[in-house]
């Protein structure tokens, strides 16, 4: 039980640290598509998915830039809070 607790905590802390490091206001880099899932599909399936889902991949890519452009002026104009 203590092991379960320990490893759960370790995982939570790891996640927390990663997120804290990313929380900086200047790190809205829309050109870097975030990779969120460590366990990706096997290579053959991944290639098929990439080919089939090209519209969604493009939509997401544009949305990253779109959202960051909306947030950045807000961030910039509220520097007293974010920077």
């Amino acid at each position, binding site marked *: 039980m203590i092991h379960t607790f320990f490893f759960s905590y370790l995982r939570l802390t790891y996640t927390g640290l990663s997120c804290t490091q990313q*929380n900086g206001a200047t790190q809205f880099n829309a050109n870097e598509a975030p*990779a*969120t899932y460590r366990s990706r599909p096997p290579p053959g399936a991944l290639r098929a998915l990439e080919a089939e889902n090209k519209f969604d991949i493009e939509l997401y890519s544009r949305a990253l830039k779109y*959202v960051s*452009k909306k947030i950045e002026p807000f961030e910039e104009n509220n520097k007293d809070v974010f920077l």
Partner: protein
Amino acid sequence: MSCIILLLFLLAITSATRQEPLPILDSEWNFGATSRRATLHNDSSDTQAFLDEPAARKKNYQSKNILPTKEELTAGPAPIKRIFLRRMRKAGSTTVFGFLLAIMKDYSSSPAVARSSNITFDRMEYSSLNLGCLFGSAPLLTKPYGTVFLVTHLREPLSRINSEYWFAGPGKTIGVANESLWAEWIALSRPLPGGGALRITSMGAGFNAGIYFDNYYTRMLTGACGNCAVGKKLDPATGFGPVTGCSSHTKAFPFVNVTREKFYTAVDILEHYFDAVLILEWFRRPSLNAWLQATLERQLGLPRGSLKRHTLGHMRIGSNTANAKLKTEASPIY
């Protein structure tokens, strides 16, 4: 003993890196200059598939004037009366849902709000948001129903599919992933010549998750599932009603191919109708959270700081939380 020491060390690190809460200032949030208006249209990425597109076709595409603007359809800048969440499966929708429930809870208990000024909260998960939902015979954005705040959220698409596989698809039931299982899962969801798909047909109407769809976001935003008809039970008070034919968990789900035109329609819809497009990978960023909350405060007609500070990074709700009652009260639209 060593475990305990390590635990204490990790606790110390966590507390040292914890973010301070945002200060609430007296002045209004500054949303930035309008000249830097964000757009989805002129910002194509370098995705190879789009580089392959014929230049002439790109040039001739005039998507911005095809759909009516939200301003033309809605009550204008008046405070919002409804919040509509276009949920995207396995893309943080429970988190966004929890966030909005908390906002609604704050709103209804705020002393700045008259008791008669209730807002409604609608969500859609398993159906596609076809154009008939936005305007036309099943209006989401029409003046009689007041101003609607539309929210949706995206996650990196292949991560979303992977999550669907593991948490609702074959990964959940079989517990392994290999090339053949993935290929089978994808193939089973292929449309049949007469409509529907093998997997959906065999699983029946109760099967509402774990299905693979290519270009899921585009489908869910544009109704790329055939010609949808409006259900008969349209609620005159809200303008909402069940939309038949677009539900992804029924045998009747009619597949159509997602085309480039559908993609551009999705771009239009996201840009022109949605007040907030959230990115799952940025849910923990303070500025995204503050922007969302400030936007909601402004559009709800509340002074800055009226709502408690909520963060998307911590809003996942379960059935045992205090929000469970509210969760059941928010109206689902399938």
